[in-house]
């Protein structure tokens, strides 16, 4: 595969990662959110494998397989099981209306472009232009966590941020060293178990996963 085509495929996948990030931002149904999250993981996994092939970095294959198993199968499965068990069907209302969220998301994309432009210029990798997209994905995940009131959606936002970070590592430097990648994956897995436990705690204590109810701790109390 020559570099030109690889770079094009890479930016194409980056564009779709961004698209999934926005799709998650505006999606209200939890099941669809989980599916989009899995798709995003799949895109990242493919992207990592392609970059690994082009750059001849074999540790990226391991990252790619890890992403595939963790973010496409394990985490969405856990989330799915939790959602089924806790019988969450309700569509979740967002704090800010959807068109507004979209506009903020767009502003974040522009912001990350400006932030990353000087960094990308220093890079000589074929993936350099996707760095801004990666940061945008992180920031959109953050925005999603802020605008959603539901515990599950907040967690999906958190995991989307994690996806963005992984993407950033791949596009800035062809991935972090393997030790770090493995460690990060382990942390994500532990986090998954913790939020799993948490969902049950929140559900039994508050009888719902709407984090709006958790507002007892305020300043000056």
């Amino acid at each position: 595969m020559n570099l030109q085509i690889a770079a094009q495929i890479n930016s194409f996948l980056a564009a779709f990662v961004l698209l999934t990030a926005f799709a998650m931002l505006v999606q209200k149904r939890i099941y669809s959110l989980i599916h989009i999250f899995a798709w995003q993981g799949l895109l990242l996994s493919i992207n990592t494998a392609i970059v690994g092939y082009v750059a001849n970095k074999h540790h990226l294959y391991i990252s790619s397989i890890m992403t595939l198993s963790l973010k496409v199968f394990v985490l969405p499965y856990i989330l799915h099981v939790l959602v089924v068990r806790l019988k969450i069907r309700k569509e979740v209302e967002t704090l800010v209306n959807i068109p507004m969220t979209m506009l903020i998301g767009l502003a974040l994309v522009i912001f990350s472009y400006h932030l990353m432009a000087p960094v990308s210029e220093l890079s000589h990798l074929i993936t350099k232009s996707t760095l801004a997209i990666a940061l945008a994905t992180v920031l959109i995940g953050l925005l999603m966590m802020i605008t959603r009131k539901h515990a599950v959606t907040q967690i999906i936002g958190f995991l989307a941020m994690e996806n963005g970070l992984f993407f950033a590592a791949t596009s800035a430097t062809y991935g972090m060293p393997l030790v770090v990648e493995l460690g990060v994956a382990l942390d994500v897995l532990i986090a998954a178990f913790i939020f799993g436990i948490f969902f049950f705690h929140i559900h039994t204590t508050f009888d719902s996963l709407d984090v709006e109810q958790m507002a007892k701790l305020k300043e000056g109390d």
Partner: protein
Amino acid sequence: MTLLILLGVPLVAALILAFVGERKLAPEINIFGSAATCAAGFMLALQVYEQGPMMAGGKFFFVDAFNVYLAVLTSFVSMTTAVFSRRYMRREVEHGRVGHVQMRFYHAMFQLFIFAMLLCLLTNNIGVLWIAMELATLSTVLLVSLYRTPTAIEAAWKYFILCGVGISQALFGTVLLYFAAEKVLGEGGEALLWTNLSQVSGQLEPTVLSLAFVFLMVGYGTKVGLVPLHNWLPDAHSEGPTPISAVLSGLLLNIALYALVRCKVLVDGATHSHQAGNIMMGFGLLSVLVAAFSLLRQKDIKRMFSYSSIEHMGITTFAFGLGGPIATFGALLHMLVHSLAKSAIFFTVGHASQMHRTQDMDKIRGLFKGNPLVGWGMMFGVMAIVGMPPFGIFTSEFLILTATIKDAPLLTPFLLLGLGVAFAGLFRKVQQMVSGDIPDNQRSLKVAHLPVLLHMGLVLIIGLYLPDFLSRWFHTAVELLK
């Protein structure tokens, strides 16, 4: 070897306690494990003191004066906390606030938390540093929600989400750092080793590093509890069990600050400017002021002291940002004495709230008469923490203020204002609690003497006379951080 013991013991202890954590002997195992860790910490410190900085495990671990002193502090405070938690947690079980499963969980996670913090300190790889920091967060999240009350779960959720978000920013910063390092050091794990990075920091790309520092600042700053990223801290401290509040306040905040300072050294080397320092000073000063004024409004005793922690972390961050030998010396000393004093205060606070079965300060009265150790311990602890002589915090704050007057005179009034307000706020509240007659709702109980006495004694000794080896040690660390 010592290093291996230092890291291995808490991990093994965590594994053992994961199976037997609810047995009668579990607290003793916990204490024993922490004591062994502490001994290993002292041994390692002795080695470093005699032989200078060293590396181990194929450059994977790196020990110098800066981190070994924090490692000793961490292992020491976790040992005394383990001693304290024996009585405290037994009482909580008797009160029915925690069950057996939770106890097992508590003990295992406590040791895992210590392991994560020590790994944070001793690793040479800034990627692993991040992982260990995240592990430290994750291991304490479920400890904060140990009581399973709605507020505890809320606090833990906030802690989990905010710190998770914050720490992801730090990972992005780390990616950028690796991006810059890779150009100079080539690919692979070598480029993330702090020792390699600090050697070539002058060649790193300044634009990338200053951008990276912003992300690292936001990320690790969240864990330090700097304003405006501090929202999780008072909640997590007030809702978790007191031993956890003590180690969160006394240790975890220090570790996060350690990570930040390590990164700052690299950034300073690359940018040749005071930019990173200025950012830290800004965050630090803001934290001091906001925390001092928030102190005044608190009703919950642990919440109040957690704001005090924010304030002190602000002072330390400010001092590290200020740079220069005196301020850095002051900051290092401050980290030490604040850890000791704040955990001692939390020990007494834990006892006091158990005696009254409440954390509401209006209902806690007559501690002098009810239990002199708790009463006087809290009184002296607060005197120490607000910076009254002859305690060690007076020395460190004095040093920091001196440096401020010299290098940033315009900021001195703000710093003094923060300190003054915190002084007044803490004193007013504590005065009420310790004096007066024993109220009806107070019950007497057995308390753990050793931790409080040990900590306060050390703070006092450091205030009266800074041992020669300690000051030489700090001087070495100051050299490293220049």
